[in-house]
């Protein structure tokens, strides 16, 4: 009833892949690549990208970036009220007091906390789910840094980052990034991250889409998990870092001098709102995949609901590059149980071909992600996609080639995470190809900051996916893990210094929330929506209809 673990339905299609495979492997061995697109061809291809669909976005009517056109799903959250009535929060009753408050519990947040602590600060991490529940944990591919002097340097890393981002990136942020990446990698090595290495300690490295040198380092195919659990372990050893789980921030708090001075936290289990007072705040809440922009499936963590964007924006921080969202070219289309799951770009880096329904190549596997995704979408729109019994279409990613190119067992050992997941579903991806389609993966933009992680709001620092500028309009693989390390460290250091030297204290206020509400009203926005969303809502409409006490959009009562 099945062919290589797939339903019979796929047999004729898989056979086409098998027919063309020997010739394609030969080409790989001879280094004959499918030609890259020119910059103009890339630009033309992007009209197939979801970002370029005008009906998918609208102008935001309020706030510091008023008039900016971004996805409806973002605007909906920004044109929404606070979860709390600012007048009801008793700011004189402080529940938690700390030097540096870190909002978020992923890679950027944890790294920022470590460095803030090393700079003498008492740190409180407040996070929505568990410490470590974040997109960082799920990053598979790797981490970029130019670290082999005989062939690479920050100069080339800079060019690659800019090229990937359509040359729109913030040059200061990019320069700081590529320059500090090697030191960041060495710091991870010293913490005990198990990088894949040659026996002499040299780091294994490979290409990613849009790289001119092999500088993507990795820990098998669980790079993000290995980094996340290592830095979390280190944070657990530090006596001046406290962690509050299941306690997301729902508003930033300012002091009378206009500095960021804490946050209103929400204990999701007891449904209490609590006041955390701090001398500096680091916002590192990650991304937004769970908004399911334009109905796309996502690779993101359950908690990726753009909370930080809402908090920062209400407090006056403008947006930057939020008009672009990254669709990872290779999300699983079938089997349905793992729909939307990320298949790391490394499969392509190592030489797996991407194929249409005829088993033919139609694109170089290492175009920048937005171009690659757009090309897949076009191929399927042109009718050359592989159909599935679930009514979706996709393209093949020919993983079995890797065992032929690099030796038997390559898929099983280098991609052990993915191999196991498919194996549980009865598919051996060293024998059968994977069916993929673009999936919502990364928030390229976010809150505007500079190379020091400062925002327009004194005392508020940002790091990681919640920011915008480093990646321009499109992030390259391996630069998000490095982003959280480089800028997590910078944010941690600067927040600790601010807490020590610049914080003025004084009375706490939520005036900015009140004026935001006023602005909403003046803009004629009448809505029941509240934000941040905190959790996505996967309740079926039938059940929802009967949940009579759920009085507003979102999932919390």
């Amino acid at each position: 009833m099945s062919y290589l673990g797939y339903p019979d339905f796929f047999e004729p299609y898989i056979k086409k892949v098998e027919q063309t495979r020997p010739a394609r492997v030969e080409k790989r061995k001879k280094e004959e690549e499918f030609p890259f697109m020119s910059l103009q061809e890339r630009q033309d291809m992007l009209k197939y990208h979801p970002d370029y669909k005008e009906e998918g976005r609208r102008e935001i009517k309020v706030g510091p970036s008023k008039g900016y056109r971004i996805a409806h799903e973002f605007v909906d959250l920004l044109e929404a009220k606070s979860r709390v009535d600012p007048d009801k929060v008793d700011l004189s009753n402080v529940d938690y007091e700390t030097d540096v408050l870190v909002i978020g519990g992923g890679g950027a947040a944890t790294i920022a906390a470590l460095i803030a602590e090393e700079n003498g600060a008492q740190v409180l991490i407040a996070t929505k789910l568990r410490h470590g529940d974040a997109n960082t944990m799920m990053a598979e591919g790797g981490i970029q840094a130019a670290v082999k002097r005989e062939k690479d340097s920050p100069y080339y890393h800079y060019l690659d980052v800019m090229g990937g981002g359509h040359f729109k990136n913030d040059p200061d942020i990019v320069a700081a990034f590529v320059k500090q990446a090697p030191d960041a990698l060495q710091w991870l090595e010293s913490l005990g991250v198990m990088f894949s290495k040659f026996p002499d300690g040299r780091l294994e490295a490979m290409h990613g889409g849009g790289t001119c040198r092999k500088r993507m380092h990795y820990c098998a195919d669980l790079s993000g998990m290995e980094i996340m659990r290592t830095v979390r372990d280190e944070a657990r050893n530090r006596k001046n870092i406290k962690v509050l789980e299941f306690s997301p921030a729902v508003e930033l708090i300012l002091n009378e001098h206009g500095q960021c001075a804490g946050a209103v936290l929400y204990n999701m289990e007891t449904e209490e709102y609590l006041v955390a007072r701090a001398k500096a705040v680091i916002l590192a809440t990650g991304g937004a995949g769970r908004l399911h922009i334009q109905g796309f499936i996502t690779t993101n963590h359950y908690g990726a609901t753009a909370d930080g964007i809402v908090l920062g924006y209400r407090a006056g921080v403008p947006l930057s590059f939020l008009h672009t969202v990254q669709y990872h070219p290779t999300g699983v289309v079938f089997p349905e149980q793992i729909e939307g799951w990320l298949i790391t770009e490394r499969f392509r880096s190592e030489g797996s071909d991407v194929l249409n329904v005829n088993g033919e190549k139609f694109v170089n596997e290492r175009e920048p992600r937005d171009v690659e995704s757009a090309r897949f979408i076009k191929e399927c729109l042109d009718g050359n996609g592989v159909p599935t019994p679930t009514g979706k279409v996709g393209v093949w990613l020919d993983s079995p080639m890797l065992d032929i190119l690099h030796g038997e067992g390559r898929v099983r050992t280098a991609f052990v995470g993915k191999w196991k997941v498919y194996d549980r579903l009865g598919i051996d991806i060293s024998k059968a190809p994977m069916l993929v389609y673009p999936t919502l993966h990364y928030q390229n933009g976010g809150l505007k900051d500079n190379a020091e992680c400062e925002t327009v709001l004194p005392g508020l620092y940002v790091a990681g996916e919640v920011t915008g500028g480093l990646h321009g309009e499109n992030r390259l693989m391996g630069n998000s893990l490095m982003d959280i390390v480089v800028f997590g460290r910078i944010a941690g250091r600067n927040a600790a210094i601010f807490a020590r030297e610049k914080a003025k204290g004084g009375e706490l206020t939520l005036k900015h929330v009140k004026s935001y509400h006023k602005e909403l009203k003046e803009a004629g926005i009448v809505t029941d929506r509240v934000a941040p969303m905190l959790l996505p809502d996967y309740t079926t409409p039938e059940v929802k209809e009967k949940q009579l006490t759920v009085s507003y959009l979102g999932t919390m009562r």
Partner: protein
Amino acid sequence: MSTKKKSKNPAKTAVKEKRQIAAKLTPIYIMGKRYEVPEGLTIMKAMEYAGYILIRGCGCRGGTCGACGTVYRKPGDYKLQVALACQKTVEPDMYIAQIPFFPANRALYDFAGLTAAPEEVFKLYPEMFRCVACNSCTKACPQGIEVMDAISALKQGNIAGAAQLSFDCIQCGLCTSRCFGELAQYHMFQLARRIYGARIVPRAEHLAEMVKAVNEGKYDRFLDELKRAKEDELKKLYQEREVEPMTAGEDWKPKDTRYL
């Protein structure tokens, strides 16, 4: 292409079949309470279908974060099964309970002060010698890790072995929940992996060299040039940059060495 037309019909029929299948409901028991959910859903999606709004017991939804450790039994079977709720599809009449948190002893240590001496690990986790080799941990691991073997390696002072065997560990704590000797295996493995990564595997010398060069300001001038470059100049540099071939070996060197 001709295949476009050919492929249309079977796909459509299959979609229809799929819908019929999707409509078929199967009974499951969430913490003992009966719900009917569509076949083929994961346990996590089945709980959401039933109306649960998950706060705990739900994380990456991709099998890597360890938030959704789940135990279940099937009628007539004495055996306790384990799974990740985001990975395991429902089976008729399964009795499901999640274990989103399990208290576990974690040692505190100053990592910078640790060496690779096994005695230090023994001192931090003396309870590892309570292991009676019952193998319940291995049976409870949703990742298929040889948990008991990794503990045995650690007991023998083989930190590298424990680190390598446990590399896929998602720290869900199911092993700990089943341990007769009351070990928190996953915390011990975390320590082993860090010691292995930082103290046993040789450091990357080329990495230290690059850090030194950056700190000496070797690349500052190049980066300043790039920061000042106009978009057109940058585009030209970008397009002309030499690309390391995909199949190049570790010894590959570029022709242009001006910016190295």
